[in-house]
């Protein structure tokens, strides 16, 4: 089977958090992108886990070709990382806009998947840690007419099915749910899948020599209509948090605890 994993480059969310905590998160002159050049760029964490899900299918004996594809201004680094982890093919869909419309990204990804020989399984992260939208997989599934399964923590081939069928354990607010879906399908992966593997040194070196195939919108002969943005980022800003924390006094843990419990009882928050 052919598995295509969609991977996005994002700013390291932990670094963004640290800047935000220090009150040093700044928006650039365009009014919409973060300017801190020291924030590392990396593969979206959930996408790394989506790739891991593909590799685990292969480890489980599923014969597959794994492709990684990315839309963005400069995706070679994460694509090489994907190759080092075990992707057989890597493809870049260049797009310059630093805050691209995800409808356009989804249209490009869907067109690439179709034109490159279709996929039995499209794997995505549950959401990108920059925009947190979680919509690109849904837009891809609609463009390709495939079903969508979200928030997988485990993916395996269902035993004894007539046609290739996936058995997926998905994380829901009410606990785990097990579903089956026939291929082709779009599946998103959640952090509950567990730690992704690290590339070996040898694979890293081999991947360094790999060049992503570059695919332009013209090459996909997409109608201009599909490349028109639908939601245009105008402005990004850092919301303020109004802090009014009262530090509870006390010399010892016992004093602190008693002072807090007294306050919570006074506020009728506890009995």
């Amino acid at each position, binding site marked *: 089977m052919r598995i295509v994993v969609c991977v996005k480059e994002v700013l390291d969310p932990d670094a963004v958090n640290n800047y935000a905590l220090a009150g040093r998160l700044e928006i650039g002159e365009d009014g919409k992108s973060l300017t801190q050049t020291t924030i590392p760029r990396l593969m979206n964490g959930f996408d790394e886990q989506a790739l891991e899900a593909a590799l685990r299918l292969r480890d489980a004996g599923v014969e597959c070709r794994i492709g990684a594809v990315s839309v963005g201004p400069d995706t070679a680094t994460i694509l090489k990382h994907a190759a080092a982890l075990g992707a057989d093919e890597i493809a870049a869909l260049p797009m310059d806009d630093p805050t691209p419309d995800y409808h356009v990204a989804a249209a490009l990804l869907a067109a690439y998947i179709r034109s490159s020989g279709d996929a039995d399984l499209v794997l995505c992260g549950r959401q990108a840690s920059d925009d947190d939208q*979680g919509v690109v997989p849904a837009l891809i599934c609609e463009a390709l007419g495939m079903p969508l399964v979200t928030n997988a923590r485990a993916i395996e081939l269902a035993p004894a099915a007539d046609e290739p069928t996936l058995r997926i354990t998905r994380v829901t607010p009410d606990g785990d749910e097990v579903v089956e879906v026939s291929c082709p399908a779009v599946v998103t992966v959640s952090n509950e899948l567990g*730690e992704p593997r690290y590339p070996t040194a040898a694979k890293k070196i081999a991947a360094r020599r790999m060049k992503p195939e570059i695919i332009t919108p013209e090459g996909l002969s997409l109608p201009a209509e599909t490349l028109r943005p639908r939601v245009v980022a105008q402005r990004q800003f850092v919301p303020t948090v109004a802090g009014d*924390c009262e530090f509870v006094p006390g010399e010892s843990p016992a004093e602190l605890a008693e002072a807090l419990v007294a306050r919570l009882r006074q506020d009728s928050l506890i009995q």
Partner: protein
Amino acid sequence: MDAKPIVVCTWNESQGGLTVGAEEALTLGRGVAGATGAKLRLLVLGPLPEAAMETAGRFGADAVDWIEDAALEAFSPDAYVEALAGYCQQESPALVLFNQAADTRLVAPRLAGRVGAGVVMNGVDVSVGEGGGLQATASAYGGDTQMVYELSGAPSYVVALSANALLPEPAEGGPTEPECRVISSDLSGVQERVRVIEQARAEGPRLEDADIIVSGGRGLGGPENYKLIEQLAEALGGLAGASRPIVDEGWVDSSQQVGLTGKITRPALYLAAGISGASQHMAGCSAAKTIVAINSDPDAAIFRYARYGLVGDCLEILPELIRAARQ
């Protein structure tokens, strides 16, 4: 010509009521409808909840549109998307608003893809921009930033509102008397492609409904210390929650994760021990009425959100809190 309607979409939740957040979405929808001279409608998929007409009226809707079909009785993404797509083609709404729950994520963006609409999730606001078009504000980076998106270029828009985006406000000047319009749909050709083999079974009370939550994070130091969180939760009559790293480490079950990719809670009291206060965690608890933080680092971000702060070692303070709470 009339302005295209603003539609709030909801469906029957298991308790027989409207989906949580429908009132918030109606409140926001009423504002947008007022500003654009459009009608506000509440769209109900599947069985009409008893509260639907009354709630719609209280929040100033002009109509309740009801799509009744056997295929919509239980949540089924394929049938829901198909029904909504048919509705959008027939009624051409300017905006379809959802409240954002786990199920919504399977429906709202797919609807947008199906009908060529634009979509924004994690919405905190929709308003009329300077140019007269709609704009949506949504949180990004877990809430570290917010993004303002211009909604132009697509015939219609789908926006899902974050659970804690705003407070519901009934219409000023008393309830309206919405008409109930039954919308026909043909879903006979739809077969749900994702087959449920084993249903999720929530055991016991849900964090989303809890009045008191005690959560622990990496500051607990080790899985053996999570029992302090459970004991304090029990002593206070609440439930135990967790930050993501200790879920990822396997100390606790993922159903206990609070945050952007976990449970969105709104308790009266949220007590966080050994949790730093990263935006992605706060996304799941910042709607709590009172937040209490215990952290050994006086500069921890969590104190910016907290009403009461305790600076110290949570492994020393938690046992004392359990004792004091039991007295």
